[in-house]
């Protein structure tokens, strides 16, 4: 593989891959938060 094919392949897949993985991670975080919500606050007495 010549140098520039190597460079552009790594750069383009690298940038898009990083953005894609992190975008999906953000969706997974939202999913985890939905599946495991914090305990509801105890109702106030009085």
């Amino acid at each position: 593989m010549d140098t520039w094919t190597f460079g552009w392949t790594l750069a383009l897949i690298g940038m898009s891959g990083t953005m894609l993985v992190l975008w999906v991670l953000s969706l997974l975080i939202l999913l985890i938060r939905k599946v495991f919500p914090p305990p509801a606050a105890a109702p106030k007495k009085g």
Partner: protein
Amino acid sequence: MILIGSVLLYLGIRKGYEPLLLVPIGFGAILVNIPLSEMMAEGGFIRFFYDIGVRTEIFPLLIFVGIGAMTDFQPLLENPKIILLGAAGQFGIFITLLLALALGFDKLDAVAVSIIGACDGPTAIYVSSKFAPHMLGAVSVAAYSYMSLVPLIQPPIMRVLTTEKERMIVMGAVKQPISQTTKIMFPIVVTIFASILAPKGAPLIGTVMLGNLMKECSVVDRLKRASENEIANIVTLLLGLCIGATMEADKFLHAQTLIVLALGFVAISLDTAVGILFGKLMCLLTGGKINPLIGAAGISAFPMSARVVQAEGQKYNKKSYLLMHAMSANAGGQIGSVIAAAVMLSVLQGMGIVGQ
């Protein structure tokens, strides 16, 4: 080279630039350049630690466990979309790769140089020791030196790329309660998902997330404390010494070393610039709710970069408290740098390029 080692000691001791690394690196550089010391010869004192810890890539991974144990991802869990700034903050790596190739670096040397842009010492050490061990000294010194210079490098770029109106944007408080179960599930899910997508990065991703899991689960406090203290300190000492010992005069004193240092500076500057530009895009798409300055915190210099963003925001608007938003971006950058390296390693494997 003895003089250069002394300069590193001066920077670490007197100026306080990442002393935990620069002091052992500087001293290692002095030791290895003493004539006939044979520190890095077969059977040599430092060569022993280099073979068991650097050549095997174990040392940076052990440090990563400690980093994970010290990192709080709560700001990111409260505001997950900010993680995208952590992705944008890594683009400098890939742009610098192209620049390095244009300047005539070999393919794998260019990869080692570009990873300085990850702004993360262990990641830079892991990748460069895998693909270009002869550049380990220059890459490590550049990575750690520029990380400590973030407060000087970032502000001018932030001012050039943003308008005064943008710098004054006040971002509302984001206070989402996060359950403890979420904090425990986060490192597990990230490890599984990210490692499936970028399998060559599994050691990097797995170790930092293991550290974070130990922190959040609260049932292995001894292991957590050992990871962030005893293990991290011992490994940091030995790793620094080994990196310094790669700085032998015949390998380090080349014009190429200066170019590596210059490209490292360019990589981190580009990370900052792209992060801010992505922040401006997010500002546009959200109708002005996001202050583009927080894009600068999308690099992995945690938490220093977040503090720089807070200070810069305060200069233009005393009512603007960007710290927690910048911490979200900074935590995103921490993960982003590991993911970027993992993606890079996996693509290289796909190309049939396997490191040593």
